[in-house]
């Protein structure tokens, strides 16, 4: 992978590009806000498609949410699903074409609120696709309303006094990885965070694993991310805030790995 062209480098020495733009992404700049980690999550998927050599056999599904335009960013065949129903769409795709790889990319409003029935039942049927679940504890796209994963006390435009499960019956943050882990169907369930480079590296491993195991069943990776815009924070601040506040609620880890269990 050496190359003789490059930036403006002082001396011509032999070099190697050790990080570059993945083939799994189109060249289109994203519409995401500065510091939003949807872009990171996209890249992890894209790199995985490259590394596993499955880009041309993969169909991705964008959700309704900030990632709705993901169909412009992933450099593979893409389908745009209705809000929350990506797992049903993926079911249709994989039942028709089990030879393809398929992933859904969903936000927390999409997956855990309106799409709760669809994710649970697809997981329970053990449909063989991969879910990339971007959890930023808020509805980004629509301007910062409360999500099922919103933390207790967190202010959003529909929980202006902070999410209040007791006085206002606004409910508690729902932990999707743990919830799905009570089902028999899933093959692989993990949660990782995107809040530092090191965490991103760990997350990447899980994303890749999820795609590798996809032919054997339902694989699910929750990625704890941010929404600087609707949290009203600078990107760096949002990263810190998420580390301190979201990770205790949404602990990272591999919750299920049927391959390791030697279960299949």
């Amino acid at each position: 992978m050496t190359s003789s062209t490059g930036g403006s480098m002082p001396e011509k020495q032999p070099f190697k590009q050790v990080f570059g733009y993945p083939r799994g992404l189109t060249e289109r700049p994203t519409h995401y806000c500065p510091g939003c980690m949807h872009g990171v999550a996209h890249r992890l998927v894209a790199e995985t498609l490259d590394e596993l050599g499955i880009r041309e056999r993969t169909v991705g599904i964008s959700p309704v949410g900030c990632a709705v335009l993901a169909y412009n960013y992933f450099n593979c065949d893409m389908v745009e699903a209705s809000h929350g129903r990506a797992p049903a769409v993926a079911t249709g795709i994989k039942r028709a074409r089990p030879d393809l790889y398929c992933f859904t990319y969903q936000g927390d409003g999409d997956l855990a609120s309106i799409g709760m029935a669809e994710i649970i039942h697809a997981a329970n049927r053990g449909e063989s696709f991969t879910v990339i679940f971007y959890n930023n504890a808020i509805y980004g796209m629509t301007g910062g309303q409360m999500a099922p994963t919103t933390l207790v006390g967190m202010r959003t435009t529909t929980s202006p006094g902070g999410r209040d499960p007791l006085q206002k019956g606004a409910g508690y943050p729902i932990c999707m990885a743990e919830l799905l882990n009570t089902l028999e169907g899933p093959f692989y369930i993990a949660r990782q965070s995107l809040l530092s480079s090191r965490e991103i590296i760990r997350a990447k491993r899980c994303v890749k694993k999820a795609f590798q195991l996809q032919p054997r069943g339902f694989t699910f990776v929750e990625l704890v991310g941010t929404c600087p815009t609707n949290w009203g924070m600078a990107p760096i601040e949002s990263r810190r805030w998420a580390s301190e506040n979201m990770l205790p609620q949404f602990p990272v880890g591999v919750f299920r790995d049927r391959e390791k269990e030697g279960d299949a």
Partner: protein
Amino acid sequence: MNNWIRVDRDRCKGCELCLESCPEQIIELSSVMNIKGYHFAVQKDADRCTACRLCAISCPEVAISVFRVLKKRQRAS
């Protein structure tokens, strides 16, 4: 060392995540704006760059490429 990074200036949104991620603290924002109106990231002291890629891994815009100068034995391979 003489590794370096290249920032795609018009992709960069000036989020500063790479700044914070760099163990060498050698990235800063430009004073000028790019076409989108953002101050973009620039590597201020390439000499100290270890090509560790942590900046690139953190960048949501995939705006950073990382280049490593090959040591002699690496060149051989």
